[in-house]
């Protein structure tokens, strides 16, 4: 009797093991994995998707803490991959033969491959892209067109931005520097950061608050507590849907362009599923659905055909050709700079 019981139990465990579905653990940004696409993917492949929301800094910290375990696929920005990989070795080099490269915009794929090279191997493929620029309420602040306006006392108490590295870069451009050209010259970069810190501290009375999450910024813009903000284009377009006066505007110094990617963590368990997800989400109809839903442009070649016309209109309105040509793309960041910047950000926040 006992033996039979043991046998039954063992059979049950074996069965449970087999029936236990494969899972894909995805570490990504909020909005990057719409529920409808997850459902379709689960139906097509039988792989369950578990999504964890994060941002660049936390993504790196999480993967570093486990030395690259716990997730099968991550979505860092392309400029934060190579230096992090060199130092902490948290990603696996990609096997590009498993990726359907004809799904991608060729120039974008090539750029990301080139920017994420470590020791001759590339670590990422592009997923979507966008820019940081200004979100402006043109009823209240019609003349805003430059990063300088974030420091402009004319809008005192009506300005908001995130106290992270993009504002340092933007202020550097406002002061007439080219921070990206100084990446390789650390003493000059440091001197520039000191000037940036002075400018930001001096302009503190202008800022209402440093926003910490996107939703709270959108709320402040919507309630017209804030007229000028530094934020991502998609946020501006979301607000434009509700209030025609508010829109995204690329500053005349050039919007800051980012590309978010797919990278596979070093100790990913389900690598196959990760490649399947990449190939799935980059299909034009899926990428188009993502674009219409979240208002981010993707690196999928034919996605525009499947993107809602109102979203395409956003793009035409905010990004005429010369604005696109003027986008300042983030080059890969050397790790030492992030440390310098961290200190400057603390200094700015602590200052009275």
């Amino acid at each position: 009797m006992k033996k039979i019981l043991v046998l039954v139990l063992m059979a049950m465990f074996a069965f449970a093991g087999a029936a236990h579905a494969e899972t894909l653990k995805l570490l990504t940004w909020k909005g990057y994995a719409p529920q409808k696409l997850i459902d379709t993917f689960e139906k097509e492949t039988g792989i369950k998707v578990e999504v964890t929301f994060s941002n660049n800094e936390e993504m790196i910290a999480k993967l570093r803490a486990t030395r690259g375990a716990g997730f099968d696929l991550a979505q860092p920005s392309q400029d934060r991959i190579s230096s992090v990989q060199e130092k902490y070795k948290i990603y696996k080099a990609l096997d590009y033969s498993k990726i359907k490269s004809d799904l991608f915009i060729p120039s974008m794929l090539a750029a990301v491959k080139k920017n994420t090279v470590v020791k001759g191997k590339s670590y990422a493929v592009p997923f979507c892209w966008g820019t940081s620029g200004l979100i402006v309420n043109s009823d209240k602040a019609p003349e805003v067109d430059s990063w300088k306006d974030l420091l402009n006392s004319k809008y005192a108490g009506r300005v908001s931005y995130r106290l992270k590295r993009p504002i340092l870069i933007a202020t550097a451009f406002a002061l007439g520097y080219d921070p990206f050209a100084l990446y390789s010259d650390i003493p000059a970069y440091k001197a520039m950061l000191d000037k940036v810190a002075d400018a930001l501290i001096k302009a503190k009375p202008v800022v209402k608050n440093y926003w910490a999450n996107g939703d709270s910024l959108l709320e402040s813009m919507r309630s017209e507590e804030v007229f000028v903000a530094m934020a991502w284009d998609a946020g501006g377009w979301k607000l434009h849907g509700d209030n025609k006066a508010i829109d995204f505007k690329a500053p005349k110094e050039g919007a800051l362009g980012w590309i978010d990617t797919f990278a596979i963590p070093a100790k990913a368990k389900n690598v196959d599923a990760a490649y399947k997800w990449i190939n799935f989400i980059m299909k034009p109809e899926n990428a188009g659905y993502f674009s219409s839903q979240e208002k981010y442009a993707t690196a999928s070649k034919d996605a525009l055909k499947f993107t809602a016309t109102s979203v395409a209109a956003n793009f035409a309105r905010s990004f005429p050709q010369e604005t696109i040509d003027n986008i300042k793309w983030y080059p890969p960041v050397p790790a030492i700079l992030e440390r310098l910047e961290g200190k400057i950000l603390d200094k700015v926040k602590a200052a009275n």
Partner: protein
Amino acid sequence: MKRSRLAFWIFFAPVFLWLFLLIVLPHLELLTMSFMGENDYGDTVWTLNNYMNFFNEPVYWYTFVRTAMFAILTTFITFLLAMPVSFYIAKLARTKVQGALMIMLLLPFWVSELVRIYGWMILLRESGVLNYFMLQLGIIDKPIEMLYNDASMIMGLVYTSMLFMIVPLVSVMESLDDSLIEAAHDLGAGSFAIWRTIILPHCKPGITSGSIVVFMLALGNYLTPNLMGGKNSLWFTEQIYNQFIASFNWNQGAAFGFLLLLLSSLIIWVGLKLTGQKLGEVAS
């Protein structure tokens, strides 16, 4: 004898493992990490630099002093507010009402701190509920920004830690014999004298344990200063977070963590010395 020792180990082992694996071990790793750093060539070496940075860089110790001062202020305000409230609950309210009042105190803690803070933000913001009513009633003619300053941050901290002061105070006050107060009354003592010579000395252990908890909670808080505080509200925990997450400098972050532990223990030790108490008495 042998048997009871076995039983002791069986029950003690989970506690021990929990303490050791989840608390002692990670702390040891963080401690070694805090003494490591990179030299100019990018190699990892033993160094005291992480601790030196704290004292050499004014931003860091300034933030710590600021955080500590605000945490002490929060503790003091919480104490002032909690005293009459707990006296009412423990001595004046009827038994039935007592329970209801305690539940009312507990209720907000059923939702997360984040939700409570957002609640306050909805009330206080420039386009918020309070401003709306004040505008409607004609008390003000332009909305006032009540959020994003030190006062609103302190208020948020007091609100979140109130319960942890009231509970120990209520329990010590319940053990206070009413006849002492009555006798004092009969002998002609004023209410100030009663508070000073009877109630406060009796409540000392409760005050101390409540203050320690509230002080620690305020000092280690992250959300409230971050969300309700203004542009200048860098809190020490936020600085630790920034070192770990934004600058990828775990060594520095670990050193700050230990400094926070050391300095907060020091402040509590000084507090106990000043009031002439021992930690053992308070904990029992």
